[in-house]
């Protein structure tokens, strides 16, 4: 299929071309107008800063990534675990679900300063990442657990399956595509939660993550470093999403519609 291959190439090349054009235009505007770097640094200046400040920035990147990962793990475990509990007991679901919604709709940027008062800083940051990330996992997993084929459920009942067997052999596999979809959303959200908490914590005078570097550089009018840190955050978000999408594809490719090619 030369046509589809050409199309795929175009779909990769076009955004790359747009990026190159954008960077060139940016550089050009900065040079032609002689804009000083503390107003708007050109891409070359940002890149130079990225290299020069790499020891500081890489440390911060690592800190932010670890926080994100911990928040994501907490969101995944908490979301899936809570959904499983809700699935086993309607009472528990009715009692707790409204609070899960409240936790979700309250802006985390407003909650973060409070958490920083009552919790040690590292814990508070992880809790923020968790708050933002767990709800999509919870609601997607719940949806998945409730989407089990009725006849298959009947079959399990006919053969006298225990609750645990029904959960492991029927409900969890059936919910897997939904869970993976929730995790994909939670990955990006955990990064946002970590950044929000770091900024809140940073303005309180401590921390060393990327978001803190951005805030700090802002106070010092070190604009190139702000851009460099932003670039790293973006790249981190893309990598997290890519990894989760890849995982989802690898797990589902043998059987789920979403992971199958169109010609199948």
């Amino acid at each position, binding site marked *: 299929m030369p046509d589809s291959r050409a199309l795929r190439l175009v779909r990769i090349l076009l955004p790359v071309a747009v990026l190159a054009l954008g960077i060139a235009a940016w550089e050009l505007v900065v040079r032609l107008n002689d804009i000083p770097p503390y107003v708007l640094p050109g891409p070359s200046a940002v890149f130079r800063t990225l290299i020069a400040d790499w020891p500081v920035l890489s440390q911060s990147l690592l800190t932010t990534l670890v926080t994100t990962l911990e928040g994501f793990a907490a969101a995944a475990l908490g979301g899936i675990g809570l959904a499983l509990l809700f699935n086993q007991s309607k009472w528990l679901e009715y009692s707790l679900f409204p609070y899960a919604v409240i936790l979700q709709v309250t802006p985390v940027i407003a909650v973060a300063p409070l958490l920083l008062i009552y919790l040690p800083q590292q814990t508070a940051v992880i809790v923020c990442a968790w708050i933002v990330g767990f709800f999509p996992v919870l609601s997607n997993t719940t949806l998945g657990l409730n989407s089990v*084929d009725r*006849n*298959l459920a*009947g*079959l*399990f*009942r*006919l*053969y*006298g*399956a225990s609750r645990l*067997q029904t959960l492991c*052999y*029927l409900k969890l*596999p*059936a919910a*897997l595509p939904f869970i993976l979809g929730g995790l994909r959303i939670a990955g990006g959200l955990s990064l946002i939660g970590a950044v929000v908490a770091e900024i809140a914590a940073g303005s309180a005078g401590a921390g060393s993550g990327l978001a803190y570097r951005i805030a700090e550089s802002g106070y010092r009018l070190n604009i190139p470093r702000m851009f460099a840190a932003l670039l790293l955050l973006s790249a981190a978000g893309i990598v997290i999403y890519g990894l989760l999408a890849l995982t989802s594809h690898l797990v589902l490719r*043998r*059987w*789920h519609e979403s992971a*199958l090619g169109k010609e*199948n």
Partner: protein
Amino acid sequence: MSEPAALSETESGTEADSAGLAVSLRGVTKVYDSGVSALGPFDLDVRKGEFVSLLGPSGCGKSTALRLIAGLNAPTSGTVRVSRPAVEVSGGHSIGFVFQEPTLMPWTNVRENVRLPLKLAHVPAAPANARIDAALAQMGLSEFADAYPRELSGGMKMRVSLARALVTDPDILLMDEPFAALDEITRFRLNNDLLALWRNLRKTVIFVTHSVFESVYLSQRVVVMTSRPGRLGAEIRIDVPEPRGEEFRTSADYAGYCRRVSNALVPSYAGQPGA
């Protein structure tokens, strides 16, 4: 959901046994929570080794009757008796159920789908594998053991569903319009395969269908049901010597039985709007 009343009824199978009956329904009714009266009162006796079809229009309660026999639902009143084998074989199950859809687990392959009833009964791997191989061979699926359901045609999926029902070596096979969604050629082939299976294994088969032709071709007895609520309309014995094959399908005898069954079906939908 465990509906204990029905379970206690179905477990006391000695009475049904003594009369050589596999299944016995007495005055069974089913009213759903929505208030819809789906069945009854309905009586049905099925002898061991008999092939009986329940025939009727949509909504006549034939699928409901089947689900009551399987114990998937409890009757509102009346008794459902199902004979149990005197000696329980490990991993055996006295009832096999085939749904209208293949109802396979899409996330795993044919072999693991067929393994399900044995896995739920904690049958060890070695004997389980032997029985799975036998069930797959029986349905002509040996080459497809590693295929995923989505890679199979509708007819093949239904074969997997049948293999799964047979892997526990049930005494009673309950089939709920299993071939209704298949094309006619595939359905003819599966009809023949099912008849061959029944001749060889002598299982009791209760087969729900809305096809007059299918019911006459397959069964020893056709039970015609009337609609809303479902009741016994007529019973027609198909006295044709085995084995049945394509000659029977094209014979005058077959056409005659089909006409009789069709006529018996008329009152069940007469006076029904939009039927």
